[in-house]
Each structure stands twice: as C-alpha cells, then as structure tokens.
C-alpha cells in the first residue's frame, strides 16, 4: 500500500460485553498497534444482557481501517463491529458543555449565539453561563470557536455517538 493512500476518518460502532477490562482491551489495541483514536465514547446500553456500545472515530488508510476492524472483531468479548462510515447513511452527535464568563455586550452576544446554535443555558450566574450544545462535531466545534472571543473558560465534550439511519439495529 503506497504512502500516499488517502487517510480517511471512520466512525466505528462496537458492541461489547460489559465486563471489567474491556475498555482497556480496546484502548490497548489502538495504542499497542499505533492506531489513532480521534474520539471514543462508551457506556452500557443494555443492562439485562450486560452490553456496552463503544463508538470510535479513527483515521487511517483503507488497509489500516480494515485491520482495525478485524483486530476489534477478534477480541473475545466483542460481539459486533460496524463501520458506519462505509455501511450506508448514519448520524453522528456530540454534546458539549461550554462555560463562558463575560459581562455587558459580550454576555449578550454569547446568549444570542447560543440561541442561534440552539444551545441551552443550564447554569447562569451574573457573570457566567454554562451552555449545553449538541449536534455534529463540526457544529459543536464552531460554537466553541465563537465563544473563544466571548469569554470561554471551560469546555467538556463527550466525543461522538453515532447510529445508522433506518430501522436496523447494530
């Protein structure tokens, strides 16, 4: 595979048994084999069957992406690996909490922009807001960027969760 093969970001969903060490296995696989993790989210999604869903955004050449999927699928507690980027249309969402401290015009402008981005105010003090914004990573990034000149003091982002469109389960 030549060096100039395009490096593309892929969003991969992994259904795993929710057991101790599973996240370490996945993360260790990426660090041990030198793969990128752009974003990673994980939480239990089925308490009865004790299943967790991991969403990973990673970058690589097609050959590397294929390897990553095969390596993930090979882990004993992994049920399913789906590459949402190649398997039809899907949606991605991220949530961020954005803390802004400002007064006067800047405070008004922050609130106005929050409205444009449909960000919710979830905490307000005389000189600060905490906004909750959800959407694509791009949207979240744009909002955070705009807040930079308006008194941004803190950001927390969840990383991406994603799902295929239509009625099929993972």
């Amino acid at each position, binding site marked *: 595979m030549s060096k100039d093969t395009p490096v593309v970001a892929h969003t991969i969903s992994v259904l795993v048994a929710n057991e101790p*060490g599973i996240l370490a296995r996945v993360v260790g696989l990426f660090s041990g084999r030198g793969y990128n993790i752009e974003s990673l989210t994980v939480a239990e999604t089925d308490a009865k069957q004790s299943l967790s869903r991991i969403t990973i955004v990673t970058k690589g050449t097609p050959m590397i992406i294929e*390897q990553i999927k095969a390596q993930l699928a090979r882990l004993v507690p992994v049920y399913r690996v789906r590459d949402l980027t190649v398997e039809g249309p899907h949606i991605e969402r991220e949530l961020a909490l954005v803390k802004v401290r400002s007064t006067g015009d800047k405070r008004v402008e922050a609130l106005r922009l929050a409205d444009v981005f449909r960000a919710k105010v979830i905490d307000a003090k005389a000189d600060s807001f905490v906004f909750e914004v959800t959407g694509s990573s791009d949207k979240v990034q744009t909002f955070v960027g705009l807040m930079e000149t308006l008194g941004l003091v803190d950001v927390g982002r969840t990383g991406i969760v994603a799902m295929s469109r239509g009625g099929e389960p993972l």
Partner: protein
Amino acid sequence: MKPEESATTGADLLVKALIDEDVEVVFGYPGGAVLPIYDSLFKQNRLRHILVRHEQAAVHAAEGYARSTGKVGVVLVTSGPGATNAVTGLTDALMDSIPIVCLTGQVPTHLIGNDAFQEADTTGITRPCTKHNYLVKAVDALARTVHEAFYVARSGRPGPVVIDLPKDVLMNKHDYTAPPKVAFEHKSYRPQTKPDPKKIAQALEMIIHAKRPVFYAGGGVINSGPKASKLLTQLVHLTGYPITNTLMGLGSFPASDKQFLGMLGMHGTYEANLAMHGCDVMINIGARFDDRITGNLTMFSPGSKKIHVDIDPSSINKNVRVDLAVVGDATLVLEELIKGWKAKQPKVDQKALKAWWAQIETWRARDCLAYKSDKQTIKPQFALERLYHHIKNRDHYITTEVGQHQMWAAQFLKFEQPNRWMTSGGLGTMGYGFPAAVGVQIAHPDALVIDVAGEASILMNIQELSTVAQYRLPVKIFILNNQYMGMVRQWQELLHGSRYSESYMESLPDFVKLAEAFGAKGLRCHEPSKLDDTIKEMIALPHPVIVDVVVDQKENCFPMIPSGAAHNEMLLGPDDKAGKLSDEGMALV
C-alpha cells in the same frame, strides 16, 4: 454430611475442572498465592505436576507439550514474580499461536490494588500478550471460566489464555459445574471455521488456471491438526505444483518430497524464494506474510495473484494485499479444495507447469545450502547433516533455541511429519528450546527429543537441567558452540563493519562438567572425524546428554535476504556482498 462439607474449595474445583478438560500434565512452580492449588494437587493423582525451575520455562515446556501433541498446554504459577516471569513465554505462545492455559495466583480480592506482597496487575500486564485473560472474582465463576478459557485457547487461531486466581477465591467453597456436554458456544467469540463455498470455487479457478503456481504453507496447517498436513500433501500431489514452508510450517509437507522447495524467507532456499518472487498464483495456507518471509514489501512477489487461507481474518490484508481471502480452518478449506478439484478433474496447463518446474530446477541446481567443508573444524551445517543422518530412521522431535543454529536446523534437518519441530518463530526467544524439549519429552517419554542449541541461548534456561534430572528425562542438548552469539555476529559483520560489539561469548562454562553437575552426561567433540561416534553415543545414552560440538566460529548462515531487500536480492554465500543497505533497511530488525 453437612452441606458445607460436601461443597468443594475453589482449588479443588479448579483441579476437577482441569481433569474434565482432559488435562494430564501441569507445568508449574509454587508460591504463597497458589498454595491451595498445590494442596489440592497433593491430594489427587490424576494430574501430574512437573516442577520446572523458572516460570518462563514452565510456559515454554507447555508450548513444547502443546505443539507436539495438539493439546492445550497448562501452566501454574504464583502471583507477582511468578506471573511476570511467565510473560515471555506467554508472548511467545501468542506470536506462534500455541494453545496455553496459564493459571496465575493472585493476592486475595480485598487486597487487589493495595500493592500487597507479591501483587502484580497480572491481567493488565498480560492483556497484550494473551489471546484473552480473566480475573476470577468469585468462586461461583471459577469452573465456568476454566472451561471457557480452554475453549478460547484451542479454538479459532489458538493462543495463550491467563486465568488470574485470587487466593480467597481458591479457598472459598462452592459446588462444581462440569463442562457443557454439547460443543461450547461462546456468547461473543465465534471464530469462523467453515469456508465460504463461493470463495472455495474462486480459489479453485485461480489454482487451476495458474501457469507458475506455488503453495506457501505455514504454522496454521500444523495448528489445524495432523489431518490438515495429510490433506495439504494430497492437494499438492493432485496439482503437481511446488510447495514451500515457513519456519513454523515445517513438517506440514514431507521435506523429502520432490515437490518441496524447502523453507522460504530470510534464510530460506534460493528456489523457494525465487519461486515466490516469480510465481503467478500464490496459494498461502495458514501463513501470515510475516516480515521474515516477505522481505521488502514493495518488491514482494510483484506479479502474482494471491490466495490467502487463514482462520484469523485480521491476518488477511495486514501486510500484503491479497486477491482472494478464504477465512476458515485449514482442514476444512483443504477438504473442500480437494473435493472441488476431484469433481472437476481439471486440465491444468501442463506445458506451462513443465516450463515452471524447469525454471525451478535451474534455481535448485544452484545448491544454495552448499557450504565449504573442512577437515579440521566442524562446520555447523556438517554437524546437523550428520545428526540428521543418525536420527532420520527413528521417531524424533527437534526443538531449537534462537540464532544461526536455529536457521541451520531448519535448513538441514528434514521434517516428514507435523508436530515434530518446535521453534520460537514469531518472538525469536533465546531459551525456548530446552524447556520446550522438556515439555515434548514429558508428552513422549520414549521418543528421541533433541534441542539444537547455541552456547549463548542454552544459558538462558540452563536451570532446567535440574528438572531434567528430577524426572529422568533423556532430553539431548546438541550445542553448536561457535563461542559467539553467531546471529548477532553475522549481522555485525554484514551491517556494522565487523565491529563485534558484545557478541563474543566470554567465560562460557565447561558444558561437560556442567552436565555432570546435574547428573547428566556431557560429551564434547572437536573433530569432524569423531562427530559420528559422538552423535551415536548421545543417541544410545538413556540419560539427559549435553553435546558440546565445537564448531567453526566464523561460519555464517546463507542464503540470506538482508533486511529491506527483495527475494531476488538474496546473498548466497560469503562471497556475495550485500549491496549498500538503505537507511530504511538498516532500521529493520
């Protein structure tokens, strides 16, 4: 009887579970955390425990046992240092896909994470060097975990599995659950063993229409079981095509067969490597395009269509893009290919095949393993030729250490059957061969088991002489003593201006006396003319024997494909000079 008396301790339950998994032998070393297990072992006589002298050796012995029997090798070590000492062996087993279950002691659950005495984060440390690992937190999960661990270790692509056992879990009481009577079904782990019939049909088409084909078979064929080797041989005979083996695949096809081109790769034969380079269809069965095989990837077999049969989908398209991937167990895939071939009765292009064989014969005629013999000093190649001459008509098992002697053994000893050759391929672990030979000898008490060793490697697990003495194992250690870390010296000669930095073996022991110190027999041979007698004596002795064969210090192992070079840039002998290696090549291992 009160109910609590009828219940079993975790340790007893563990022993029961092992027996139900058909375990006969455990290689281990005791310590505080596993004392309950040793107590349970003491009270029974179904399981045999072999006391090694270092935990690394326990794993290698279990590997030798596993590889020579096809069964899962079992290891038992204590917490902390016991577990960390086992790590090299586990990594070795992972790289070479050897089924191992390694039981490690652990501090009691309430102390985990407290930096307790002899605590190590065993599951954390072994996560990247096992196929899977478990920490058993409660006794009610113990039996189930053991059964699952054996399933995971032996199914799909085999590998090592660790079960970490806190001491309180071993002492708590619980009833035993026997393994499931039906075939074990794991909830998430379901390796694909049956090949897709469409892929089989496509593979057959490619194989039938090949003009310059080559079979390239690896350790996966051995791991699939002896039947796979039979089937491979049958298919290769049906087609009339040439075949080469990887280091791990030796024995999957009879070496004396005319269709066999020898081993391929860095120290493979001229004919095998050039056939790989020049073929138009490559049929890879159970090999993984390892960097020791491919050399420079951009120049690897540039004109061929490649079929890759592997049970592990992650091996496919990892290093080399292939044209057709067939995921499945080698036995099942070979069965289908043979069935398909017989049903079709295909007419292969005999003219093309004849021309291809004629080409191969010209490569063969180079006699790439030829070496300059010497009347005064024993050439290592000569020593192995003579060794082979004396063992070829009796059942024998060969293990090796790592270095030049290992490559010469692969080149000069001929393997006619699977499971007779144990060597550390993927990890290249010096110190593997002797403990592996211990494991093989335990499994095959009456067989001739020989560790072909270097004088440097053998010192890495030499303590096992004590094990061999205790169990009266007639293991033979055949040292090709060149007083150098020969393989290191060879690279320094070729790549670092002959600056032999730290590769001379200073202050070696007197191996004859060393053998005697452990109650074994020591033999030494300097002269080519006395070699036959020495070998005969070694074979005839019913004891463990160390043979110190004093060989030429300067001999190098050829052919050699220098790192970063292509198959057709092979050095055939000392007079071939390596072209200037690229920086990239120099950086390769």
